[in-house]
Structures are given as structure tokens and as C-alpha cells.
């Protein structure tokens, strides 16, 4: 017996970002590839130099015991620091996003601030305080404490690097926590009752991509850090490289740098495996409400944890700097005055680097986020290598290239900027990429369907939405640029001093007094950029209010490259005198043998049908039956593998060609509405009307909004609307360009049950009012039957039956259709003496709808719906007994075991209640012809 098994699901392409996974856009790919090549070149130079070492020495260097010890130490350091950073960051992120921690907004800024403190300053302060002759020892010595536990070596290094690198994980984790739908957490808590397991099973898997993204940066930063391990006297690769470098053994230094590059590769690959390629955009349903866990007594330990972290990472180093400031310069150093120019130098170079990195990150991030392709992944991952190579090596590499190939920029600011870009581009790429992944791909599709070209859709929708991510990435580049030291020293113009180089110079000579002001300035300036890095909570309502006041939000330049709508059409749109809803007009849409395959598997298989002008056709079927794919093929969001699609007789897609979505004049309403979150209701509706003159456009918006009953909400943002309201905006938006065809993809499935019924009436009403031809996809048979002119029941990529709602219900062509559309009872029957005998008595052959039984055999299954039959309690001529009853409100559902063993379901009035076990007679009450099927072998 055929049935719809849930496992029989085809890959639903609408669930991925990759619409055209096989066809990367050539221009974008080339651009991203070129950028990746440019930033990877300095790293490749290291390889080139390393290859000049003769193989024997190379091998002995790579495998000597010392190198292996260093490899072990480095690995332990990276793994431990990364693990501890995650263990520290995730709780801190929870505390500052999901709880009622006092002052949590302030904490979330302060806890990210360690990122702006150069780790060498932090380590310096740490040693000053805790070192063998440090401040604490000074306090304790009167108490007879002669020495403190040694702080040097692996534990101390791990401690400091964790404190200064955890904010990477912290920042990405709060971004993840703020983005996901908090209802998950509530739901999980009701199921799990206990917060810990709720977090473990519901929250952690959801924020995993965010945590791994941060852990990647922490790991790479740890691998490349030089100052801290050196100060803490720990032999790691950066330090060993430096030793070779100091002995002028560039080749050996390069060779050892390859170790670091290899470590970086491993880290990057591991992270790739862990994070996958998941789009992490939230659902577009009702606003994700904020969730607050009340800490209660736990408030104090939580505050203590935050304070301790801040004390170690911020208060102590800053206090040390202030001590220097108070004591002032003491030692004599001629010509060593602080100049404000150092600050402007730092800021301008870092800003330039931030801007360039943001621009260069864009193509790489977009390619890798939007297309799940190997090439895109390689380009994106390649940028991470520069982050793990020590700055001295990058700097030297740029000296090589600069002086050889571009002497005009050697020792100029552009080369410094480029050095920063090589090292910090991944920060911009990562942040930008994440922001793109958070953008619902439906938004781009919605824009395309509203007439925007791909570039325009990017400009009007994707770009504005990814700006916060781009800004955050740039800010990270900026604050790293502010701290950068070794590469700056190598490539800067002669006499070009930054805050970092100045601090280092005077500290290097033990002139601490001179270092205080520039170091504090560095921290202060970078501190501001943290505000840009910090992910924002759900958008501040005040910001929305402000935006609402800004004039001219929707630009309307250059309307000529748009498809042109005949504006004379506009008069009749909102009125009821639209096209007739009759089905006897011309054919609006026809599909002819359309197939869509994904790697051989057909999602849509030889689909043919035609839709008359003004008809409302529903495609109904279980998930995976290909109905959404069919819709996307019609809309142009997918290309058919074979077959032809015609709109008003004109071919819009076949196996070789296809009009892009923006040129089809087809409107679509998505399941998750896909409203543009950065635009008001009116702007959303106006999105596809840019070619229309302003006054007409405004009239049209007014009329459409009144049609959907949302006139009062014109200036609201989608986040302020309920699900039903969003749905109506989406409908108005898709109708605005007066499409030839309207597609609705499960438009009601994101709504509450009660609202769903109300809305389906409303939508049908509107569609019929406007008179537009519509194809509506649903998995809900009741919805399909109640609103359609015709219903197409799909299964396995094919149409099983296409007919009016009554016909498909009462006279299904197959058991598949019968069962999908409602409860189906099959009465086994056989013909005897011109009468059809069934377990509930004989039925006249005339009542059987088809002639199928005549053609086949005497063995039939007659389809009876629960309301085709009635049960009557009786003592004498019973057919069976009630074995199950369920009160449904208006009606009661019974299951009756017939004497023959067949069980049938039937409904009765709520007026009467028949107890289980009651002997009943089953009577056929339906007057319509009954459908029968040949019985299968038992």
C-alpha cells in the first residue's frame, strides 16, 4: 500500500543558501580570488624562503628534539588557552545577555575591553605586580613572605593569554545568543525543567558556530603572540623563530614559521569541520522576545566573576600605567617627548587599514557565505594564514616585496596599511561573513521577485543589513592596528611613530614614565572601537523612531533600468472590479514536462499542468513532494533540468534558458514572510514600485495597505508587527507591482491555528478581489480544499491528481490522494449477483463512481470518509462495536470494529454519545458516488 513516509523527503533547496551552488558568479569569484592571492602572497614568500634551506638541515631543524618540544609546548598552549577562553566566555556571555545581572550592559562592554590592551602591556603589568620583585611581593615582605610562587612558564603564559584573548569568543558568543530565538530556551526549559540541561541541549548547539568562530581567532592569536611567551620565558614557535631571526638565519626562521602556518591550517580546518556551513539566520516569525533568567542569590557570585576578570585584565594594567604617569619621567632621555602626532598616526593608519580590510573582506565573505563552494571556502580560509604568522615575518616579507616590486610604496603608509590588512583581514572577513549568514536568504529572493537585479538586491537589502557586521569587523581590524608592533617597525616610513612603537621604544629602554600617556591614550582610543564591535541587542526602539523621522529613506534613482509597469493599470487595482475569478479565461501559466533534479534525484518529475487566468490553484502534498521546488521553478529562483514553463504563452524557462526572477513579473509570499527588517511597512510595499511615479506609488501603497487592513501601520517596522500583520504586509508587497502571477509558499504555516483559518479566508478574498492568478503551496489539505479553485495533489515530484476540491476529496484518483486529503476507510467488497457486498451490507453498483471494478476483479476496496457513514446503536442487526471514541467538540469521532475485522472511522453528532463497546449498525449516508479501488493482495 503506498503511503507518504516522512523519511521520503527530497532535499529542499529552499533550506540552503546555495541557490546556484554549481554556478559561482565569475566576476565575484575572480575578485575574491585576487584578494585572497594578494594577502596570501607574503605568506607564500615565507614558503619560498624556507625552501632555500638545504633539505638535510631543514629536516634536522624541523625534527630536532628542541623543535619537537617547542611544538608540544605551542600545541598545549593553544589548546589550553582556547579551551579556557571558551569556558570563561560562554558563562560571561550568558550572564551579560540572558540574566538580570545588575549593570549588564556596562559589563558587556567592559568584559570585551581586554581586547584593546596590548597583551605585552598586560603581561608587563602582571609581572610588575606578581613577579619575583613585584608589588605584591613588596607588600608581603614585611610579613615575612620571601618569595611568591613562580609565575613564569606555561601556567603564567596560559593565564595571561587567556585573559587577553577570551574576548574573541565572548564577542561572537553574545552575538550568537542575541541572534537566536529565545523561545527555544523557554521551550527547552519547560521540557527539561532545569536550566543547565536546557542550556546544554537547546542553547549550546545553537551558539556553537558563534563560539567556534571566536575560538578560531583566539587560537590563531595565541599561536602568533610573541610578546607574552617571551616575557613569561616560555619557548614557543614565535620565540624560536625570533631566535633564528636574531641570528640572521632568515631561512631557518622562515622554515620554522611554516610550523606556525601548518598549525594555523590545522586550526582553520578543525574550525571548518566544527562550524559547518549553516545559515544561522533566525526565523522571520514574530519578534524574538528577550529572555531573562533571574539570578537571585547567584547575583553575587556572578558579579564576583565579572569583577575578577575585569580586575585582572583592565584595572591592574591601567593602574600600573597610572603609577607610571604619577611618577612621571625620571631617567634622562634626550629628544624623547611625546608628540600628539603619534596618536594621529596610529589612528589614521588603523582607520585606513580598517576601511581597506572591510572593502577587501566583502567579496570573500559574500562568496563564502552565499555559495557553499570549495573555492569560496578556500579563499576565505586562506586569509586566516596571515593572522597566525608572526608580525616580524610578515613585515620582512613585505620588505622583500615592497623594495623589489613596488619600490614606490616601500617605507610608505600604504605598505603599513597593507601589512595590517594581511594580518587582520580575517577579522573583517569573519565578522562580515557571519553578518551575511544571519541574513535570511529569502530576503534576496524577495527582492529579486520584486524586480531587483542581483546587484540591486545586494545594494538595497543585503548590504544595509550586513553593515553592522562590516563595521564590527573593521573595528576589530582597527583596534589590532592600534596595537600592532613588529610589522609596523619593519615597514613604516622612517620617522613614522605610532603609539605602540613609542610605548615599546620607551619601555624597551626602561623609561616607563614616558610610556604612560601614549599607552593610556592607545587604550582609550581603542576602547571606543569596542562599542562598534559589540553586537547589538534587538534593535533599539529609539533608533527606529529616529529613522522614522529621517526624510527620503526610500531612494528612487535611476528608474530606467527597472522593468516598467504600465502605470495606467493602476486605477483598478484595489477595487473589486478586477479580473473575473472564473476559470474560463486564457491560460496564464503552463508547465510542460518540467523536471528538476539534484544530482540525479528528481525533486520535481515531469510536472505538467496549466493554470487558467484568475484561478487559484493549490499545490498540496507532504513535505518533500516537490511543491515548493515547483513554486521556485515558476518564480525563477530555480532552473528546470528539463521541460518548459510558459507565462501567458511566453516561455519563461526551459532547460537552457530562463528569465531571471526580476523579469518575470511574478510575485511571491514566503512562508517566513521575508519582510525587509530595515524598511517600514510602507517601504516594504513600495519596494517593487520604484519605476512608478511618486504620487501614484503613494496612492498604490495607501490602497494596498487599506486592502490588507494595515493603513495605520504604514510607518511601523516589521519587528513591531504580529505574525498575521507581517503576513498581510508580505501579501501587499507582492501584489504591489501588479504581478501576472502570485505565488504563495506555505503562507500560513508560521501563524497560530486560529489565525490561520481567518487569514486563509482573508487572503483568498484579497486574491480574488485583485483577480490575480495564484499558485498556493501548502501541506495542509484542509487549507487546500477550503480556498482553492483547483487542487493539485503532489507526490514524489509528480502530480497525482489535479481537480476541483470536491472532486479530489470525494473522487480521488489514487489511494495516495485519498489518504492525503483526509481519513480514508476502505470497505473490502466483492460483487455477487449484481450486488456489491460489503461488511456494512450490500451497495448498489450504480453508487460506485468509477468503472474500475468492472475492469479488474470482484475484489474491491470502497472508499468511505468518516462522514459518509453513520452509526446507530442497535441490539439486533449490528455490524460491529465501537472500540474508540473521541470528543472533538462539534462532532464525535468513533472507530468501529466490524464483524469482518475491518475497522472504520466515522463521525457522529456531539448531540449523541455512544459508549465504547456498544454494538452498532453502520449505515452509508453519503449520496455521492463512492470511489473504489482494486484491492491489493493480502
Amino acid at each position: 500500500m503506498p503511503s507518504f513516509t516522512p523519511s521520503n523527503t527530497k532535499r529542499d533547496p529552499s533550506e540552503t543558501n546555495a541557490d546556484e551552488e554549481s554556478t559561482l558568479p565569475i566576476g565575484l569569484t575572480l575578485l575574491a580570488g585576487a584578494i585572497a592571492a594578494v594577502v596570501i602572497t607574503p605568506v607564500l614568500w615565507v614558503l619560498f624562503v624556507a625552501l632555500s634551506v638545504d633539505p638535510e638541515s631543514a629536516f634536522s631543524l624541523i625534527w630536532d628534539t628542541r623543535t619537537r618540544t617547542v611544538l608540544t609546548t605551542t600545541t598545549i598552549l593553544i589548546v589550553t588557552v582556547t579551551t579556557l577562553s571558551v569556558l570563561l566566555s560562554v558563562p560571561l556571555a550568558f550572564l551579560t545577555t540572558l540574566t538580570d545581572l545588575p549593570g549588564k550592559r556596562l559589563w558587556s562592554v567592559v568584559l570585551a575591553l581586554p581586547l584593546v590592551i596590548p597583551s605585552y602591556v598586560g603581561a608587563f603589568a602582571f609581572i610588575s605586580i606578581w613577579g619575583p620583585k613585584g608589588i605584591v611581593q613588596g607588600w608581603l615582605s614585611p610579613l615575612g613572605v620571601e618569595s611568591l610562587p613562580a609565575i613564569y612558564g606555561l601556567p603564567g603564559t596560559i593565564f595571561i593569554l587567556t585573559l587577553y584573548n577570551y574576548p574573541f569568543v565572548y564577542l561572537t558568543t553574545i552575538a550568537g545568543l542575541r541572534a537566536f530565538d529565545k523561545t527555544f530556551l523557554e521551550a527547552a526549559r519547560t521540557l527539561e525543567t532545569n536550566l543547565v540541561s536546557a542550556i546544554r541541549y537547546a542553547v549550546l548547539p545553537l551558539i556553537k558556530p558563534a563560539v567556534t568562530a571566536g575560538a578560531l581567532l583566539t587560537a590563531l592569536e595565541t599561536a602568533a603572540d610573541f610578546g607574552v611567551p617571551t616575557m613569561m620565558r616560555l619557548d614557543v614557535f614565535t620565540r624560536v623563530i625570533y631566535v633564528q631571526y636574531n641570528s640572521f638565519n632568515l631561512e631557518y626562521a622562515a622554515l620554522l614559521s611554516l610550523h606556525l602556518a601548518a598549525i594555523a591550517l590545522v586550526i582553520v580546518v578543525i574550525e571548518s569541520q566544527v562550524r559547518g556551513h549553516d545559515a544561522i539566520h533566525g526565523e522571520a516569525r514574530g519578534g524574538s522576545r528577550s529572555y531573562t533568567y533571574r539570578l537571585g542569590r547567584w547575583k553575587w557570585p556572578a558579579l564576583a566573576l565579572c569583577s575578577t576578570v575585569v580586575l585582572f585584565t583592565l584595572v591592574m594594567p591601567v593602574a600600573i600605567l597610572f603609577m607610571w604617569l604619577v611618577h612621571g619621567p625620571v631617567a634622562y632621555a634626550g629628544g624623547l617627548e611625546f608628540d600628539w602626532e603619534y596618536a594621529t598616526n596610529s589612528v589614521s593608519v588603523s582607520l585606513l587599514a580598517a576601511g581597506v580590510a572591510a572593502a577587501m573582506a566583502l567579496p570573500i565573505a559574500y562568496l563564502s557565505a552565499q555559495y557553499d563552494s570549495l573555492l569560496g571556502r578556500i579563499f576565505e580560509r586562506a586569509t586566516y594564514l596571515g593572522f597566525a604568522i608572526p608580525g616580524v615575518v610578515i613585515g620582512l616579507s613585505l620588505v622583500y616585496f615592497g623594495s623589489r616590486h613596488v619600490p614606490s610604496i616601500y617605507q610608505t603608509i600604504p605598505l603599513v596599511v597593507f601589512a595590517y590588512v594581511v594580518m587582520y583581514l580575517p577579522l573583517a572577513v569573519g565578522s562580515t561573513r557571519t553578518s551575511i549568514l544571519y541574513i535570511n536568504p529569502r530576503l534576496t529572493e524577495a527582492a529579486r521577485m520584486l524586480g531587483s537585479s542581483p546587484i540591486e538586491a545586494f545594494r538595497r537589502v543585503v548590504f544595509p543589513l550586513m553593515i553592522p557586521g562590516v563595521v564590527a569587523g573593521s573595528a576589530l581590524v582597527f583596534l589590532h592596528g592600534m596595537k600592532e608592533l613588529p610589522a609596523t617597525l619593519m615597514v613604516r616610513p622612517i620617522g613614522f611613530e605610532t603609539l605602540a612603537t613609542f610605548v615599546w621604544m620607551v619601555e624597551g629602554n626602561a623609561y616607563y614614565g614616558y610610556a604612560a600617556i601614549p599607552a593610556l591614550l592607545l587604550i582609550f582610543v581603542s576602547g571606543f572601537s569596542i562599542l562598534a564591535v559589540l553586537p547589538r541587542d534587538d534593535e533599539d526602539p529609539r533608533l527606529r523612531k529616529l529613522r522614522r523621522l529621517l526624510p527620503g529613506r526610500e531612494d528612487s534613482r535611476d528608474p530606467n533600468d527597472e522593468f516598467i509597469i504600465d502605470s495606467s493599470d493602476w486605477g483598478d487595482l484595489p477595487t473589486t472590479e478586477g479580473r473575473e475569478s472564473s476559470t474560463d479565461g486564457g491560460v496564464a501559466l503552463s508547465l510542460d514536462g518540467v523536471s528538476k533534479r539534484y544530482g540525479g534525484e528528481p525533486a520535481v518529475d515531469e510536472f505538467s499542468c496549466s493554470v487558467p487566468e484568475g484561478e487559484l490553484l493549490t499545490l498540496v502534498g507532504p513535505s518533500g513532494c516537490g511543491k515548493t521546488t515547483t513554486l521556485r521553478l515558476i518564480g525563477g529562483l530555480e532552473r528546470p533540468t528539463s521541460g518548459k514553463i510558459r507565462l501567458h504563452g511566453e516561455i519563461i524557462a526551459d532547460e537552457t534558458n530562463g528569465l531571471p526572477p526580476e523579469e518575470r513579473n511574478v510575485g511571491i509570499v514566503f512562508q517566513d514572510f521575508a519582510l525587509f527588517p530595515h524598511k517600514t511597512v510602507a517601504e516594504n510595499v513600495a519596494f517593487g514600485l520604484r519605476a512608478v511615479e511618486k504620487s501614484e506609488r503613494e496612492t498604490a501603497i495607501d490602497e494596498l495597505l487599506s486592502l490588507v487592513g494595515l493603513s495605520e501601520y504604514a510607518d511601523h517596522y516589521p519587528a513591531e508587527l504580529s505574525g498575521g500583520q507581517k503576513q498581510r504586509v508580505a501579501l501587499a508587497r507582492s501584489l504591489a507591482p501588479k504581478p501576472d502571477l502570485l505565488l504563495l509558499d506555505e503562507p500560513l504555516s508560521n501563524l497560530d491555528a486560529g489565525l490561520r483559518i481567518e487569514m486563509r479566508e482573508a487572503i483568498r478574498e484579497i486574491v480574488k478581489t485583485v483577480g490575480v492568478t495564484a499558485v498556493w503551496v501548502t501541506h495542509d489539505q484542509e487549507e487546500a480544499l477550503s480556498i482553492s479553485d483547483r487542487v493539485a495533489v503532489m507526490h514524489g515530484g509528480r502530480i497525482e491528481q489535479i481537480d476541483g476540491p470536491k472532486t479530489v476529496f470525494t473522487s480521488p484518483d489514487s489511494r495516495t490522494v485519498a489518504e492525503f486529503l483526509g481519513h480514508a476507510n476502505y470497505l473490502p467488497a466483492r460483487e455477487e449477483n449484481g450486488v456489491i457486498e460489503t461488511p456494512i451490507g450490500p451497495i448498489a453498483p450504480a453508487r460506485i463512481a468509477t468503472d474500475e471494478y468492472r475492469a479488474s476483479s470482484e475484489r474491491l476496496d470502497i472508499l468511505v470518509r468518516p462522514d459518509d457513514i453513520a452509526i446507530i446503536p442497535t441490539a439486533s442487526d449490528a455490524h460491529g462495536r465501537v472500540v474508540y471514541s473521541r470528543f472533538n467538540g462539534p462532532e464525535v469521532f468513533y472507530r468501529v470494529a466490524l464483524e469482518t475485522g475491518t475497522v472504520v472511522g466515522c463521525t457522529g453528532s456531539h448531540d449523541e454519545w455512544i459508549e465504547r463497546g456498544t454494538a452498532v449498525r453502520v449505515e452509508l449516508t453519503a449520496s455521492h458516488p463512492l470511489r473504489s479501488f482494486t484491492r491489493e493482495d493480502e
Partner: protein
Amino acid sequence: MVGINRRRVLQSAAAGTVFLAGCMGGDEENGNGGGSENGSGNGGGNGDDEVLGDPEYTEGRPEPGGTSMEDMPDLEGEVIVYSGRSQPRVGELMDYIDGLYDDLTLEVRYDDTDDLINAITVEEETPADVFYGSDSQSMTFLKDEGLTTELPNDVLDLSPEEFRDPDGNWASFTRRFRALACNPEMVDVEEMPDDIFAYAEDEAFQDELMWAADQGSFQAFVTAMRVIHGEDETFEWLQTMVEDQGVVNSPGGDSGLAEAVGAGEVSAGFTNHYTLRDQPEGAIELAFTDGDAGAMFNVTGGTVIEGTDNQASAEQFVAHLLSAEAQEYFATTTWEYPSIEEVEPIEEVPGTDEFSPPEYDLNELAELEATLDMLHELGIET
């Protein structure tokens, strides 16, 4: 044996905080700097009425002998100096020279000696006209790479023969001596052995000695020992120091060493004489050995880069650092020993007659690799 003590007030906050100097590569001399593009900084200037150098120590000194800058040929055009000596140490002097001549643009790239050497090696055609090194090894390295030119005799002749490259490719500006920094409360400097090898034998020094193995000056000292006393003897000395005497590696270069000695963590350490300059008064005193590697000196100096487009001024720039004014500056401000006999070292450091340095060719200090191999073999962290 000579015992010296010196003073210098460092703020207490910096106690124990001298480690950066070590970590950032090189001893404190190698620190980097930048920014003194021209003579607009303070301390630079017109030379006449302004005192060059640390006023606390310039006063009361006799007029320096030797050739004044005024009597040297003028510098002109653009002279680019890659300086391994840091701006805090020599920036004032650079600004001073720049300020002397209207037609001179003196550009100084301050950086680690190692960074500069690597840069010059890697640059296709270095912009540098002069390399100013903080040790002889770096200049020898450049010479051996064929990146330097011979200095003219009138420049070479400004300093005695023993302080310059036998090939005439570099001239030294100052000398600095290896010394033992001693804590006067823990040892009597007068009683310290004057034989470097005695420190490996005397049980009194067990766990009481420190060195700064990551420093170029220490490594040059080991190289000198190899050159003077042979590989085996050097290896044995290092091994005994580590295994029997439990020598401590400095937490932060030579400054950290001096700090640790002053604080009494150890009673003595192998370091450079000028560490005295930045220590509080009386905290440490210096002892010297006699005629062995422990008494070696190293030099700072300058060399003209092959292919310079301003040869004459580059050469004369080197000459200027051998002038009376420059030498006096070094004596009073960096507390090093002048290279010209006409300027006396500052009285806070021992007179040159109290030293008996060993005889060896400074060029041989460039053989660093074997030294590093030896240190690594013994597990000494560099």
C-alpha cells in the same frame, strides 16, 4: 679588581618591571625608536648654547679634545641611517647633527639591530646610507655579505686602529665592557675572582650567579670565549655553570639581571658595565676579570652601505660620531667608553687603564651560530 658603585633613582613602580627590555629583543641598547626625522625635536638644535647630553653629568667636565664637528666637512643632501641604537639613547645626538646643517636631511630608522640587518639583507636595494650598529657582529655580518664599503682613511684615522675593522669597513664609536654586577651587601667586589673560569669552580657561587643568555652581548661573550679559549673549554665552562653552579637565566635581559642582583636574588651576574647607569645608587657594584673572555669588550660603530647615493656625507656622518661633541655625548649620556683618546670616560665608570681585555679580532664575534648551537645543546634558553 675594581669596585664601582653608582646611583640612579628609578621610580619604585618600575621595580621588577624591566622585563620588556629583554623580551623585545636585544639588551636595552637595542631598543628601537623612531620619529626624529629632523632637528625639530628638543635637545637638537644649534649646538652653541645648548648642552648636548645628560646635563647632570656633562657639567664640570673638561672641554673634550679631538676634532670638533665644526672642523669637519659639512654634511648635505639626504642621509638615511639605519640605527640599531635606540632613539632614547642617541636620538638627541642625531637631532643635534641634523640641526647643524641647513642642507642636510638626516633620516634615522631606529629599530632592533636584528630587524635592520634582516631588512637590509632582504631589501632589493636598501635606502640606507649608513648602518649604525650596537655591536661589531652586525657590522661584520653586513661586511661579509658584501653590503658595506671601505671608509676613507681620514675617517678611519680618527680612532685607534684596535677599535676598527681591520678591513676598514667600519669604525667603532664606543666600547662597552663585560663585567660582573655584584650586590655589595652579599659579596665583596674586591674579593671577586679575576678569572672567568674560577666562577665555574668556586662553590661559593653555587646558585648565586645569573646571566642573560638571550642577549646578544652574552652570546658575543660566549663567542669570544670560543675564539680565545677554544670550543671544548667553553663548552665545559658553560656545562659546569649550568650543572654544578646552577646559574640562573635572567628574567629580563641585562636590566632584569641588574635588577635581580640589586635586589639580592643572586649575588652577582655576568653583564655589561653600563647597566650601572640605570640602577639605584649603591645597588650594584662592578667587578672585572683579567685578560680572558670575561673581560672582553664590544663596540658600537658605523659603516657606509655599498651603493649609497650620498657617499661623501655618509662617510662624514660616521666621522661626526667620532667628533669631540659626539664622543663627549657618549661618555656622559650612555656611560660608554669613547673611541677617541681625547675624550675621557665618565668618572663613574672605571678608567680604561683598569681593564685588561683579551686580544682577539672583533670580526670573529660574528660566528654566532655555533654559539647558539652550543647553548641549545646544553639546554640554555636563548
